[in-house]
């Protein structure tokens, strides 16, 4: 068993039922994030030094809130996919790898959902 290469061990087990899904979703979110990031960067610059009420006024628009939710959803998903690849590439001790993957996964969900809920909260007028 220990003499087998990783390839030798998985040969004959059949498909992982995964294929290009991860790669494709990374690219789809990347594509979506191009216009969203540009919009975000321009908006942030325009909001430099804005007061709390100006910020609320800005996010009160369904377009702004909608774009922000899209940015957050695509961004956090893209982040989760990317961090997963980085961890899988550099962390080779199994329990550390699994732990890191779980932390990234939970962190992205928690932070992403909290941010989206904050946007919706502001948009609906608190």
């Amino acid at each position, binding site marked *: 068993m220990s003499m087998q290469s990783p390839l030798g061990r998985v040969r004959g087990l059949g498909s992982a039922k995964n294929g290009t899904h991860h790669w494709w979703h990374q690219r789809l979110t*990347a594509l979506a994030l*191009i216009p969203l990031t540009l919009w975000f*960067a321009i908006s942030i610059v325009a909001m*430099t030094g804005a007061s*709390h009420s100006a910020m609320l006024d800005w996010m009160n628009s369904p377009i702004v809130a909608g774009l922000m939710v899209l940015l957050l959803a695509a961004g956090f998903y893209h982040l989760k996919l*990317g961090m997963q690849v*980085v961890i899988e590439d550099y962390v080779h001790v199994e329990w550390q790898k699994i732990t890191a993957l779980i932390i990234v996964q939970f962190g992205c969900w928690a*932070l992403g959902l909290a941010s989206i809920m904050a946007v919706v909260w*502001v948009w609906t007028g608190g």
Partner: protein
Amino acid sequence: MADVNRPLSPHLQVYRPQITSILSVIHRGTGVVLGIGTLLLAWWLIAAASGPEAYAQFNWFISGWIGRLVLLGFTYSLFYHLCNGIRHLFWDIGAGFELASVSATGWVVVIFSLGLTGLAWIAGYYMRGAL
């Protein structure tokens, strides 16, 4: 998994640095930085939802020199990852793989990411009335 002690993936110690490899490392690095930067983004949004006091606290942090330094790093990471990400998408459709164009587009990414960062910060200071 690691019963055969072979190097499995990008091992940077034995790879001669070149524009392609350096930019590739920076792409990953900026990706991780942006991941950490989402804490800032989440803080900003949650502060706005929490009320004027929480928002003032965020504004206090981000206007300070540490906050500005962090934001500068975040801005550069964002523009770098955006520009180089577009470069990656062109590779994904099979374009720009010749060695000459790989290094040329690499330099374009370097120039654009620095330029856009500068532009955003000048515009930001202008918005604050500091320019």
